[in-house]
């Protein structure tokens, strides 16, 4: 039978049953990743055709342990399976994915699917793993007993997928429901004893051997530390040459575009608004991809839950669980991938708090600002024999941010923490990450990053460029052009608000374009001080001017401001996309600006008193 409208089917199964690799095997790259309306649960849809040319639309439902849901992920799975979801129709056929090596856990959820009354095809996944540990499964007997087709599959290979496709062409009746009130565990035990033969002597599994090391109270944290160290080394070291090459490539491209254009409005718009704006963000792509390469690999291998296990106590001090650690760590490179990585946190409250404190982790874009101000105002001298005072101040800025993050999380989780907060984390068997899944994951991240964040950034930059360029200065003007622009006027208007922090109007002006990306503040200051330098060398010329014109209190206050201020529109935009709530974005911006103002005010006040 061949129809033009695709048949709706869905993959359902426990977490770690190999559902997503089966999905990738079925659909290849013909899949779309997005969010379910109103929630932050990832929605994966794919398309393929059966041997008889029936077009199929398949949903990869979030992994669930049960239809009595405990998380937003499981809510989606339950609602779609039962046909209660407002936007998704109930699937015509469910493919119940179970791992042959963990049937004791996975069969129970399959029995829940059997009770729904929709045809279910069982994909008995990871048959190779089951064979390796010596299990023999009577698939024919199991299929007859369940009243559902059971198809052995190895989702890493094409094996079984063809048979699965053929089965989709045949009419599959809904399985007979078990009597009301059946003890599903007892039923699972009965099925296992009838159709699965365990080996007489069970060898210790690979996962158990590895866990001896990775979960060890002393060696475990050490191994984690080494992994994290290498991860951050590569994020910074490997990315740097690519970022440099990309940066100069973008410069060349910009020059190539701009050379034929006469100097003027269009030139300025393209150079300062579009190319500079998009460039500052695109340059971060290699860093983000390397970071995600690590995160996806650690996730696919099954190590991530172990890291969460090891760090659970540490994160509990902040009122969070171990799962928040990796996203927060990523935020030291850039809060954007950090906030995106918070998707791996299942608990919605933990996820939200993690997103809210991610901007407090000192991102790499703040380093240029820190370096400039420390270089200008902190004397280069050795303290306590071995330490460099400038390095110490830099370390202090990082430490202040981390401690503030812990305190902020502690406060945010306080009200809700009275409710018990479970860990209940499955530690899945270790698996070799699939090149295909990793590549597909990276590709999806890259596209998502470039298309959505890229468009937001470019439009904001054009807006800021407009604000800083119009209206033009009068013909005989002496000051910097920006002084006469809307941004310049706003700077003067803002000054009364910021004078308690010791900020002059030039700083206020620089804060505005600094909204697009933190490091832009430096080139903006250069423009304001009419140096006419742009980009990286701006700092060198700016340094003596700043140290002669600013007081120490002003400089330190600006440093304190930068520790907290959420002045990076792209972070707020990603926050908006991930949480789908403007209220949260305004709340985050409000609390961060509040902290920044308070921090800068106190720093200014204390520095003045101490002098």
């Amino acid at each position, binding site marked *: 039978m061949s129809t033009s409208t695709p048949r709706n089917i869905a993959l359902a199964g426990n977490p770690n049953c190999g559902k997503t690799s089966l999905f990738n095997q079925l659909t290849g790259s013909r899949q779309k990743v997005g969010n379910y309306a109103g929630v932050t649960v990832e929605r994966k849809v794919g398309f393929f055709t059966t041997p008889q040319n029936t077009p199929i639309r398949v949903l990869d439902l979030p992994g669930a342990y049960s239809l009595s849901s405990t998380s937003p992920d499981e809510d989606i799975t339950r609602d779609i399976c039962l046909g209660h979801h407002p936007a998704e129709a109930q699937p015509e056929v469910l493919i119940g994915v179970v791992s042959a090596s963990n049937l004791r856990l996975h069969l129970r959820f399959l029995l829940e699917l059997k009770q729904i009354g929709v045809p279910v095809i069982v994909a008995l996944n990871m048959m190779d793993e089951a064979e390796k540990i010596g299990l023999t499964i009577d698939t024919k007997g199991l299929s007859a007993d369940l009243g559902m087709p059971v198809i052995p599959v190895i989702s890493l290979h094409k094996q079984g997928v063809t048979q699965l496709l053929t089965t989709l062409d045949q009419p599959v009746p809904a399985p007979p429901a078990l009597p009301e009130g059946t003890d599903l565990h007892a039923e699972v035990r009965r099925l296992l004893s009838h159709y699965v033969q365990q080996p007489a002597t069970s060898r210790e599994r690979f*996962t158990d051997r590895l866990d001896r090391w990775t979960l060890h*109270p002393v060696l475990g944290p050490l191994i984690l530390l080494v992994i994290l160290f290498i991860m951050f080394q590569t994020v910074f070291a490997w990315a740097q040459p690519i970022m440099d090459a990309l940066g100069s490539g973008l410069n060349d491209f910009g020059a190539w575009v701009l050379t034929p254009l006469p100097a003027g409005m269009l030139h300025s718009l393209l150079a300062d608004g579009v190319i500079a704006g998009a460039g500052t963000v695109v340059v971060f792509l290699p860093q983000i991809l390397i970071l995600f390469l690590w995160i996806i690999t650690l996730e696919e291998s099954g190590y991530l839950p172990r890291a969460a296990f*090891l760090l659970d*106590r540490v994160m509990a001090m902040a009122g969070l669980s171990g799962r928040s650690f990796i996203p927060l760590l990523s935020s030291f490179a850039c809060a954007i991938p950090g906030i995106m990585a918070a998707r791996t946190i299942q608990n919605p409250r933990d996820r939200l708090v993690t997103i809210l404190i991610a901007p407090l982790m000192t991102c790499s874009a703040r380093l240029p600002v820190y370096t400039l101000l420390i270089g200008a105002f902190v004397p280069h001298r050795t303290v306590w024999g071995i330490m460099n005072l400038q390095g110490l101040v830099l370390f202090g800025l990082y430490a202040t941010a981390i401690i503030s993050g812990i305190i902020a999380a502690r406060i945010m989780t306080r009200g809700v923490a009275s409710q018990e907060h479970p*860990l209940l984390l499955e530690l*899945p068997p270790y698996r070799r990450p699939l090149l295909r899944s990793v590549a597909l994951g990276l590709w999806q991240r890259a596209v998502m990053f470039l298309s959505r964040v890229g468009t937001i950034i470019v439009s904001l930059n054009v807006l800021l460029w407009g604000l800083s360029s119009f209206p033009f200065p009068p013909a005989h003007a002496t000051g910097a052009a920006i002084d006469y622009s809307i941004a310049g006027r706003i700077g003067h208007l803002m000054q009364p608000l910021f004078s308690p922090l010791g900020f002059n109007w030039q700083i206020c002006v620089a804060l505005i374009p600094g909204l697009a990306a933190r490091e832009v503040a430096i080139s903006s200051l250069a423009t304001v001080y009419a140096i006419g330098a742009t980009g990286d060398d701006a700092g060198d010329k700016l340094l003596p001017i700043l140290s002669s014109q600013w007081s120490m209190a002003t400089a330190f206050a600006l440093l304190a401001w930068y520790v907290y201020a959420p002045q990076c529109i792209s972070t707020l935009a990603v926050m908006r996309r991930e949480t789908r709530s403007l209220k949260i974005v305004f709340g985050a911006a409000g609390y961060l600006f509040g902290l920044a103002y308070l921090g800068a005010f106190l720093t200014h006040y204390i520095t003045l008193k101490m002098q």
Partner: protein
Amino acid sequence: MHTLATLPKGHEAIITSVSHMTDADTIALRLGELGFVPGERVQTIATGPFGREPIAVRLGTSRFALRHSEAARIHLQDSK
């Protein structure tokens, strides 16, 4: 009678019951759905690096990380 929270590392025991702290104890329900049901064998395979919490246990062919309060719901008897 002891609970999973106090089962020493490396030891195995049989689950006798899972207590529900409230009428709608979602954690106890979830424990049941994960297979923590009377008659199953559990083994503690690791304890957290900072004291007893969290613990990692093996249940059949699955492994789980639990916090103390979750493990304390699971009552055990010695396997021999």
